[in-house]
């Protein structure tokens, strides 16, 4: 290349852009330094595009504030007193301290915590499991990001599913297999923040250009909302009611897909009216299986048994095909001579939906009934249609019923695993780099018995079935209670609970103060790291090798440079894993990579040469119509991978967990409806976490090109509300409730409704170097959000719908160091 610049291709995944990765990039390297980064035009994921955060990498890599040496704490917790040590010394101290904890309290007394998952997931599990602890923690209350949605869909439909933007197909949109959706529902997601859950956000723009019309569900006028055919300006926390309203319209107007209902749902299964539960073979047949279910066969005019193992009906009548009734009242003889009245799952499902008339839903959601009807019709009549949901879906305690209702929408409209619909998604080639809920990779606890001590596992069904993490709120409780066993140490890798992922950050401050040993691994000094005993400097994605198989494609991350003494997370953890586990399976990190991608038939080197790979036609990790073709199930039968093989309108696992098996809306814990007492003092709905295109959660406040584009923590306020509270655009104000307060710059804008304010999250001030905690409590909206409001299944948290008031500050209440910020912004 000219000027001795070498162009190296790799894939983004975390540190740097900070995101969930997937973009092909070309790093321009000169004398071992990054001089420029660009999107890889050949890469099917981003097709040459690249976001602001990735494009700012040159300011990130060589940032003067990067951690470049291991540090050892020499002052008090939370003080800024550290001294540089060598890697060897750091590893020795860690080994000694953690071995001591393991010996004294057991390996489970050590928690391994991460921020949002990204590439850190596998390596933190690898270390925890090698050490022997099952307690890998995603530090957000109610684990309320992504895992809940995956767990919910695993429960209801066996596999997760995402909107189809032809990402599985060579040639993408031009592939003849693909169909552009006529309609897409964007449910709580704002595109300028770039990329949602392992999808490329602007694919949706690609589709809009090709004709896709948008239904946008958002309390806030996003750009999407203003470009949508229907914008449903929903009251936060009432999404389930809206989804039920959609189902109501679709059922009333018979807009559902009869074929899918008939073939792939549990609609005809009989429900006992005496206890509301499913009628099982074991109830009617002596020695019958509890896993087989009962339908009423219209052909034989009697019950028939669904054999879950065989995935077919055991008809009492040999001749004739079973024709199960989807509707009706049936009296069934059960063992013990009793007769029970039964109805069908479908009847019950419809009966529930019936309660959510558009008029009722308007009252709950604030969305005009007429718009609900029109939008539901438009979605149901569009073929194909898809739904993309954002993280607000997770951020409510009753997340599973909500997902259930939404999933029923795409299932019942026949949009599941069809081109342009919502398609089942698995790790490409089933090569699991990162064990998401329900998945199992090569990185495992050696002994499943070790998992029994996992915190929250026994308390919450999904944690025992799909989710291989501990339940975060329960961990915090246990840290203080010491019951059933003490928690002594914390491994905290790219995780900053004081500034972002921790709700009630003052509580987290106590947690960090209480633990005996904390290791922090990160790229920059953060408020939370100031509590660590040992700090290890990690690397950006450009400084490491890795593999990524989050959906498609299967990709390698390729090391293109090295920065000082920084080391990749995977290498750090690999090194320590070997120290803690004498039988550690892999010699070299690349051996582990080879194992991970083994299902693809390639080894790391081969894949690295290709760059990426898409699963071939007919592979179970590639759409479409896999439930029809028998590609989903390990037995090769048509059907889904739920416990019963069907899309479960009535969730059998929820029944098992003693939770409501059918979808419903329940008012969240802190709304003007559920808490009129609090609403008297705190009349505004507080929604948090509006995404910025230039930040990833708590990151990037120190990257000049990015910070200058979004310099201050902002709360969006409707002009009427601002006026009522005597607040001006651009003014620093106080947002507060019974939990605490934080200061924000008022952005007065009509994009939010008068009854809600939207506050940015993740704020700390890297420029406030004189404060050991970088003023992280100053503008941290989590100061107003309590922990411990997870749903009954341990999932979800009320992050998008609290209560607050806003006011002008008292004199001297506001602290703001604009000069430092400006210095920070400049370079």
């Amino acid at each position, binding site marked *: 290349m000219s000027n001795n610049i070498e162009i190296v291709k790799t894939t983004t995944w975390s540190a740097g852009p900070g995101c969930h990765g997937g973009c092909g990039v070309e790093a321009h390297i000169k004398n071992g330094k990054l001089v*420029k980064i*660009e999107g890889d035009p050949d890469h099917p994921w981003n097709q040459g595009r690249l976001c602001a955060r990735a*494009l*700012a990498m040159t300011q990130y890599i060589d940032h003067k504030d990067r951690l470049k040496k291991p540090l050892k704490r020499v002052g008090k917790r939370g003080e800024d007193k550290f001294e540089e040590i060598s890697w060897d010394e750091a590893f020795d101290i860690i080994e000694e301290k953690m071995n001591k904890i393991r010996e004294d309290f057991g390996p489970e007394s050590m928690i391994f915590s991460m921020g949002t998952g990204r590439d850190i997931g596998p390596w933190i599990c690898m270390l925890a499991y090698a050490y022997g602890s099952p307690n890998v923690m995603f530090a957000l209350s109610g684990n309320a990001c992504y895992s809940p949605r995956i767990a919910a869909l695993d429960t209801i439909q066996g596999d997760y599913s995402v909107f189809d933007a032809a990402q599985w197909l060579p040639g993408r949109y031009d592939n003849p297999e693909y169909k552009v959706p006529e309609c897409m529902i964007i449910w709580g997601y704002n595109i300028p923040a770039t990329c949602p859950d392992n999808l490329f956000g*602007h694919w949706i723009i690609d589709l809009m250009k090709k004709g896709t019309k948008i239904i946008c569900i958002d309390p806030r*006028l996003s*750009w999407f909302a*203003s470009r949508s055919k229907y914008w449903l300006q929903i009251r936060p926390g009432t999404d389930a009611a809206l989804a039920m309203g959609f189902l109501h319209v679709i059922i009333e107007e018979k807009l559902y897909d009869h074929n899918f209902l008939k073939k792939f749902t549990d609609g005809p299964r009989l429900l006992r009216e005496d206890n509301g539960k499913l009628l099982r073979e074991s109830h009617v047949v002596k020695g019958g299986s509890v896993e087989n279910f009962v339908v009423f066969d219209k052909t034989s005019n009697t019950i028939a048994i669904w054999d879950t193992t065989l995935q077919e009906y055991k008809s009492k009548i040999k001749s004739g095909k079973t024709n199960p009734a989807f509707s009706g009242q049936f009296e069934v003889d059960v063992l013990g001579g009793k007769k029970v009245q039964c109805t069908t799952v479908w009847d019950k499902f419809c009966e529930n939906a019936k309660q959510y008339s558009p008029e009722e839903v308007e009252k709950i959601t604030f969305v005009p009934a007429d718009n609900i009807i029109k939008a539901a019709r438009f979605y149901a009549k569009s073929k194909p249609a898809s739904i993309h949901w954002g993280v607000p879906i997770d951020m409510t305690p009753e997340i599973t019923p909500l997902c259930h209702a939404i999933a029923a929408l795409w299932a019942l409209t026949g949009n599941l695993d069809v081109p342009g619909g919502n398609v089942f998604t698995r790790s490409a080639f089933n090569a699991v780099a990162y064990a998401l809920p329900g998945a199992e990779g090569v990185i495992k606890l050696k002994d499943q018995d070790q998992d029994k001590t996992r915190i929250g596992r026994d308390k919450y069904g999904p944690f025992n079935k799909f989710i291989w993490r501990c339940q975060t709120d329960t961990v915090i409780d246990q840290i203080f209670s010491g019951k059933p066993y003490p928690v002594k140490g914390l491994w905290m890798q790219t995780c900053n609970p004081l500034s972002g992922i921790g709700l009630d950050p003052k509580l987290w401050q106590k947690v960090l103060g209480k633990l005996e040993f904390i290791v922090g691994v990160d790229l920059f000094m953060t408020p939370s790291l100031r509590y660590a005993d040992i700090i290890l400097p990690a690397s950006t994605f450009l400084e490491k090798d890795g593999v990524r198989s989050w959906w498609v494609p299967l990709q390698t991350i390729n090391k293109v440079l090295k920065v000082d003494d920084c080391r990749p997370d995977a290498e750090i953890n690999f090194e320590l894993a070997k120290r803690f586990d004498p039988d550690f399976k892999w010699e070299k990190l690349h051996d582990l990579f080879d194992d991970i991608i083994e299902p693809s038939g390639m080894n790391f080197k081969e894949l690295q040469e290709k760059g990426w790979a898409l699963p071939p036609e007919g592979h179970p990790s590639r759409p479409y119509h896999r439930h029809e073709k028998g590609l989903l199930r390990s037995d090769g039968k048509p059907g889904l991978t739920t416990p019963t093989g069907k899309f479960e309108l009535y969730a059998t696992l929820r029944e098992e967990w003693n939770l409501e098996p059918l979808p419903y809306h329940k008012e969240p814990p802190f709304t003007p409806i559920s808490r009129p007492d609090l609403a008297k003092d705190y009349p505004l709905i507080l929604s948090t976490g509006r995404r910025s295109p*230039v930040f990833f959660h708590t990151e990037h406040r120190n990257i000049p090109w990015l910070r200058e584009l979004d310099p201050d923590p902002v709360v969006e306020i409707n002009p009427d509300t601002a006026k009522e509270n005597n607040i001006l655009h651009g003014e620093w104000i106080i947002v507060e409730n019974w939990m605490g307060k934080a200061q924000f710059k008022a952005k007065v*804008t009509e994009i939010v409704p008068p009854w809600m304010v939207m506050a940015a999250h993740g704020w700390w001030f890297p420029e406030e170097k004189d404060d050991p905690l970088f003023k992280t409590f100053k503008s941290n909206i989590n100061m107003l959000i309590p922990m411990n409001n997870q749903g009954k299944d341990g999932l979800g948290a009320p992050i998008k719908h609290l209560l607050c008031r806003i006011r002008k500050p008292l004199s001297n209440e506001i602290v703001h160091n604009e000069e430092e910020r400006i210095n920070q912004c400049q370079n």
Partner: protein
Amino acid sequence: MSELETPQYGMLIDYEYCTGCQTCVVACKQEHKHSAGKLGGVEVQELIHKLPNGKLYITNMPFFTEMCVFCVKRVKEGLEPACVKHCMANILTFGEIDDLKKEIPEKRKSILWIKG
């Protein structure tokens, strides 16, 4: 106003789809090593209008400032300007006006920023 002998270059902006993702802004700053806090070649304006049907309508508009040189160096090397290459919504097309004419979107307004 004259008939130029050199080709007339322009930047076609299908701004209807500009999401305001700020990619162009940072792409330009990287390419030209513009410091933060200093004017770069492009910035994105956000306009919010109320349409007659009462709906609010957000328009994002890349605005090419006095600093924009249409990435003359890249263009000479046969590359697209940095903002064009990286635009997440693919709303920017650079080229000669005659070629760009063929790319004008139907049924919606767009902008051709002209180098002059």
